[in-house]
């Protein structure tokens, strides 16, 4: 058995630092403000690119997400860590993915973006991070009381490869139907011509950054939800060290690039409704905790053969469709017309899942 250097304290710090440098760099190279990487936002953009929602400002088949899954697959194969598995309450995970996305889009970001927003000086992110920790804390109460979605089963290698194949297929679609300057669509794929969806780092750089992060994160098990969960449950600092490193390094990188602007008002792709920043992310945090991983970690697990994580990812992609078709997602103008109702329903569903799905 080879020692996994990236699973050590030093390893997780290195991974946090790499993400903390690459994310602001991707922003510098074209990605939206304080959104060098946002797994929820980018999956939402993918949902839009495929036409699952028609919010014209957020449609782009983000290569970073494809890179995350394929990079994770590469690491899993290289280190004999590819373990095709599935069958632990898949539809529950899908529903958790849907509400995780709805909560994240009420806040406007996944945990990674919450950190990157704070690292860019957006103080609204403090409310989001507080909500995230609160939601994860709720999740740990269920975990302590026997919440468990059941065991996975080993499955065919080909089944474990399906998610990476789907992601590779998305990349092929992007090469066949590339963005045409000023056109909102190329045959089957939608492309934003204004708004955050129109802002992107060059494809080759984006995919390479995704591959590097996917590779490193698979080996290190980097997970923002797990970081807070493990600290709350076990007072263990391992993953949290990586998360703190990401925050600090991204802050420094933003200062170097002149991308740090402190305040609550006029922050990019953000609103200032404190209660809903908190509540949206609390819902997302609870859903992540019940599903066993933040959106990034779910992509990395999907890359190493976890079919249930793949289903969570597609729950998020479909959730983005609901969020924009039903007016649940927030915008810089504030929460969507039905966003508050969706957060309340999401809490009811996630709490019901936590209370009823226990093994004694």
């Amino acid at each position, binding site marked *: *058995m080879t020692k996994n250097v990236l*699973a050590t304290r030093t390893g997780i710090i290195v991974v946090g630092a790499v993400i903390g440098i690459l994310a602001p760099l991707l922003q510098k190279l074209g990605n939206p403000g304080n959104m060098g990487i946002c797994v929820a936002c980018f999956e939402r953009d993918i949902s839009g690119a495929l036409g699952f929602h028609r919010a014209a400002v957020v449609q782009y088949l983000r290569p970073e997400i494809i890179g995350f899954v394929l990079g994770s697959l590469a690491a899993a194969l290289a280190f004999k*860590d590819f*373990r095709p598995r599935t069958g*632990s309450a898949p539809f529950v995970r899908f529903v958790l993915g849907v509400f995780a996305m709805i909560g994240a889009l009420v806040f406007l970001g996944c945990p990674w973006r919450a950190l990157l927003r704070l690292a860019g000086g957006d103080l609204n992110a403090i409310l989001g991070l507080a909500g995230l920790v609160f939601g994860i804390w709720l999740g740990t109460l269920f975990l302590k009381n026997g919440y468990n979605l059941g065991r*996975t089963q080993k499955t065919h290698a080909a089944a474990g490869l399906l998610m990476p194949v789907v992601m590779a297929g998305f990349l092929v679609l992007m090469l066949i139907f590339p963005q045409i300057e000023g056109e909102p669509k190329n045959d089957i794929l939608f492309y934003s011509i204004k708004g955050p969806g129109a802002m992107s780092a060059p494809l080759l750089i984006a995919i390479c950054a995704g591959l590097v992060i996917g590779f490193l994160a698979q080996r290190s098990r980097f997970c923002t939800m797990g970081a807070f969960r493990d600290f709350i449950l076990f007072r*263990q600092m391992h993953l949290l060290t990586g998360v703190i490193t990401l925050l600090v390094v991204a802050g420094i990188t933003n200062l170097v690039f002149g991308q740090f602007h402190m305040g609550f008002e006029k922050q990019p792709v953000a609103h200032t409704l404190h209660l809903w920043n908190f509540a949206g992310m609390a819902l997302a945090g609870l859903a992540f905790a019940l599903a066993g991983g933040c959106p990034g970690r779910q992509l990395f697990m999907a890359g190493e053969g976890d079919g249930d994580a793949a289903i969570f990812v597609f729950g998020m992609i479909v959730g983005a469709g609901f969020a924009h078709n039903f007016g649940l997602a927030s915008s810089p103008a504030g929460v969507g017309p039905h966003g508050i109702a969706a957060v309340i329903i999401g809490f009811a569903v996630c709490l019901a899942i936590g209370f009823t799905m226990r093994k004694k």
Partner: protein
Amino acid sequence: MTKTIDARGLSCPQPVLMFLEAVKSPEDTQFAVLVDTEASRENVSRAAESQNCRVTDIQETGDEYHLTILRNP
């Protein structure tokens, strides 16, 4: 006495929670933990060290890991 914990098919943090539950009983001094992902192996090992225990042996058979954990005297 050896206590066996079968955490195969379970993902984080379940294997760690099961180990921490088991380690509460002072009469158990040796634990056999079965897991089937590398992440679970690492997490359980880390948890063992935090509980004044040490991993004395890890057997890899197929896709499974069999960890032997001893409570430090």
